[in-house]
């Protein structure tokens, strides 16, 4: 039994060492660039190019989804030359001219991924098969990102992941067609460790409450490694179901466990609930082992901080980006977003916007929408001016490497959106790791006809 | 409808339009009338055009073989949901029962003492009686009921369903008397009772007769019913097969043999 890819089987020149593993079977046939214009899925033919925005409009992450939606509207507007251009002027690459992508006007189609892997794939398939989307972006859960990334690999459609923090997205489940700008749990651990050590000392006992799925486990693992390196002890982690709502039965045992730090590996509304409920249990006023009991939330977003309200004050976590950053790009984006929507952008909005721009730029630089060429343009790409300082799209795992922010819940917010303050920045070098530690294979970049 | 022998009064229309509006009807005029009633249990056609009437204070025995539609006719008169009335009119003292729901019929003065007594579970004897006085139209006060039914007075705090069969029957009758009633419908009052108890119930019913309450009695024991009744109607498969006096039935062996198998 052999695999027959309908249409054509063609690979680009092998560039990386990793790709060598895959080099079996079909011999590469090289055509000139112009010849394959129509030979890949959803090649834009008219004067427009369609991009699929697949985000949670309903469900537990609807908040993030709504903000992603806004970011995409803004990105489309800016790519087509509308508005003030946002981060296009600050972007280090100057290929984007406000005339769409490769001269074709950008059109967006949206779908609701419901934060469910199945639904997300359905929705992505619809955008690929019916609407002719040449690229899919979005998602705000790692399981959704991984599921859609797998589909996109199969369909030969580039997937620019938005909000996904699991190590697996660019680790063991990485795909040639999937790209992530957002940071990951491993980087959170590296960045957060020193700050926690400084704030809470070297002699601590940590109790983990972990969302029972891939992201939770990788984050728990990463934070455990980082804190144990400091000298902390870790009690057996407790896994909680996703979307439990009421976490009281998991919080009750924490009080008598002998731990003095609670680490909440929860996200979205789960984190909002578990944190506020932990505070209701009096954990922030409690003394344990002669020390103040502390709570840590390794991944926070401004939207979650807003949901948790005063419970968030003083709590440490990490963030991909914050609207209060003072570099030119961040200021330009915040201004542009704030003027259009009356509120500052969240990190979810930021990463969605950046991913769209990066794709457009890669197409411009490749001079085609042909996915293997666009992938080549993105792999190993070094850029700046998109809010996170100098950033590298690493070729080996399609993970972006940039500075990571360590943030803390603000004690006295000056306005309803002033919720997090940056207390430290982990440099890009410090959060860079060997791609081999997470395994996984990217797979081929074969274009697929549909 | 082979053996219908209608008496003259029931053939003539019991009500003129004017009379139906009048609230107080002269004693001689039909106090209660059923006119061409058709009723269904689901898709089953059970009551197939029954008509009869009763004068004030009269006792009517409604007889017939098993499944002839006696209970269904009583239930249709009490305006219960089943059987559903598809056609026909029921008039009580000038009030159109056929336009009412069962609770409205009850307020209009109809009281059904059902075959299985229907003492309400979870309620004491006294609560079962009080329940009858919740809706407007009170009949006997509790004291009077207890005076007539000393056995119930003794057991007033006991749960109703724990009473013996005869006591339950008494409670069911007493409950009807606790309401301001104009028409009493008795469905198989003697069924399943020991002979001694039957005599006791008979005594009560005779007492009720002296009070002049208009009554329809359905009874398997046709003789007992006919002894109590002034007049009789015999049903056969949902239709009226005979209308006449109680004595007519007792005196006519063929009729008894044909429709009552006695």
């Amino acid at each position: 039994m052999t695999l027959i890819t309908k249409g054509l089987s063609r690979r680009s020149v092998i560039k990386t060492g990793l790709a060598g593993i895959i080099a079996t079977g079909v011999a590469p046939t090289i055509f000139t660039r112009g010849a394959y214009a129509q030979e890949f899925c959803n090649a834009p033919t008219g004067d427009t190019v369609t991009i699929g925005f697949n985000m949670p409009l309903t469900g537990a992450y609807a908040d993030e989804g709504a903000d992603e939606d806004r970011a995409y509207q803004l990105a489309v507007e800016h790519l087509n030359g509308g508005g003030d251009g946002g981060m296009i002027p600050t972007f280090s690459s100057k290929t984007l001219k406000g005339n769409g992508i490769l001269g074709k006007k950008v059109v967006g189609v949206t779908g609701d991924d419901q934060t469910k892997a199945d639904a997300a794939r359905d929705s992505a398939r619809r955008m690929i098969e019916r609407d002719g989307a040449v690229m899919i972006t979005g998602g705000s859960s790692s399981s959704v990102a991984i599921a859609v990334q797998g589909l996109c690999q199969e369909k030969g459609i580039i997937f620019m992941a938005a909000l996904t923090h699991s190590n697996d997205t660019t680790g063991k489940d990485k795909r040639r067609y999937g790209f992530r700008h957002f940071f990951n749990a491993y980087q959170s651990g590296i960045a957060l460790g020193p700050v926690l050590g400084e704030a809470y000392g070297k002699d601590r006992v940590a109790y983990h409450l972990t969302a029972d799925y891939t992201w939770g486990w990788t984050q728990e693992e990463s934070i455990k490694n980082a804190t144990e390196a400091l000298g902390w002890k870790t009690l057996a982690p407790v896994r909680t179901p996703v979307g439990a709502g009421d976490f009281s039965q998991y919080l009750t045992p924490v009080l008598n466990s002998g731990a003095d730090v609670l680490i909440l590996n929860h996200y979205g509304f789960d984190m909002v609930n578990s944190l506020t409920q932990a505070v209701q249990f009096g954990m922030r006023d409690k003394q344990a082992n002669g020390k103040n009991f502390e709570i840590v939330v390794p991944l926070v977003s401004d939207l979650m901080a807003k949901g948790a309200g005063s419970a968030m004050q003083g709590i440490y976590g990490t963030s991909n980006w914050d609207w209060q950053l003072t570099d030119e790009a961040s200021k330009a984006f915040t201004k542009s977003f704030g003027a259009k929507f009356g509120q500052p952008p969240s990190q979810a909005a930021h990463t969605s916007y950046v991913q769209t721009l990066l794709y457009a730029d890669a197409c411009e630089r490749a001079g085609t929408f042909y996915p293997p060429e666009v992938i080549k343009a993105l792999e190993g790409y070094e850029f700046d001016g998109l809010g996170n300082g100098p950033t590298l799209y690493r070729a080996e795992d399609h993970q972006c490497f940039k500075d990571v922010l360590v943030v803390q819940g603000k004690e006295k917010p000056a306005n309803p959106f002033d919720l997090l303050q940056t207390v430290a920045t982990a440099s890009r070098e410090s959060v860079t790791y060997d791609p081999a530690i997470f395994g996984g294979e990217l797979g081929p970049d074969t274009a697929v006809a549909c | 409808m082979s053996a219908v022998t209608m008496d003259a009064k029931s053939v003539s229309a019991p009500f003129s339009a004017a009379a139906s509006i009048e609230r107080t009807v002269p004693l001689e005029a039909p106090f209660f009338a059923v006119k061409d009633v058709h009723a269904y249990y689901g898709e089953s056609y059970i009551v197939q055009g029954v008509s009869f009437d009763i004068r004030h204070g009269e006792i009517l025995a409604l007889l017939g073989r098993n499944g002839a539609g006696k209970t269904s006719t009583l239930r249709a008169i009490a305006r219960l949901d089943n059987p559903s009335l598809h056609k026909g009119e029921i008039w009580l003292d000038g009030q159109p029962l056929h336009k009412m729901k069962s609770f409205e019929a009850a307020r209009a003065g109809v009281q059904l003492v059902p075959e299985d007594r229907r003492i309400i579970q979870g309620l004491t004897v006294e609560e079962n009686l009080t329940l009858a006085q919740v809706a407007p139209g009170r009949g006997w006060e509790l004291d009077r009921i207890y005076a007539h039914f000393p056995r119930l007075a003794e057991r007033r705090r006991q749960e109703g369903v724990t009473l013996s069969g005869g006591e339950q029957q008494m409670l069911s009758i007493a409950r009807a008397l606790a309401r301001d009633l104009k028409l009493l419908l008795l469905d198989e009052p003697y069924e399943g009772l020991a002979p001694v108890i039957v005599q006791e119930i008979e005594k009560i019913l005779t007492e009720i007769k002296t009070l002049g309450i208009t009554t329809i009695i359905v009874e398997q024991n046709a003789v007992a019913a006919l002894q109590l009744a002034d007049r009789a109607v015999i049903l056969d498969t949902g239709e009226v097969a005979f209308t006449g006096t109680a004595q007519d039935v007792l005196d006519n062996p063929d009729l008894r043999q044909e429709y009552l198998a006695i």
Partner: protein
Amino acid sequence: MLNVIIGRLAPSRGAVVFDGKVLTGKKPHQINQMGVVRVFQTPEIFPELSVLQNVMAPAFAKRDGAFRINIWRSLESERGIEEEANHILQDVGLYERRSHHAGALSRGDKRRMELAMCLIQHPRLLLLDEPTAGMSRHDTNTTIELLKKIKARGMTKVIIEHDMHVVFSLADKISVLAGGRIIAEGLPRRVRRSEKVQEAYLGGAHRLEEATH
């Protein structure tokens, strides 16, 4: 009593024996499969099915046993069973209405159909619980004729009936029960003469005499 025989109620003591086998403790369908069939007092039928299907179903139980997955033959190709059912429907006078919804039949018709449902199984023991209740005089007589016909075929029957006319025209042997005890047993004419029966069962016939005098 019939409920005990067919397995609806369990006896606290004693046993039901049929053809040398103990019936007590058996499940209703097993008892039926042994050839004991009952007509219920309130018609127990399949209201959503057609009259014909109502009568065909028991025939399948007779032919195929308590359980058989019979998917590959279409219902309409079961000619043998359909014909037999039609035949019995003619016997009970329901043939013209064989495609009607059973639920829409009158009570008397339902009972006749139920009788047909039992007859198609050619039971070795047929239990009849007031087979004529709810029937008109005319229908009752037809049913008696029908039962007489079946009797001629040599089927054991037990009849529960208030209608003494029916009982005396059919039965070979009568047991009279009151309050859960047998008070008289034997040939019809002897039972008819029993005083206890007269008192307990025949609606107080002596009182009838008093009243008619």
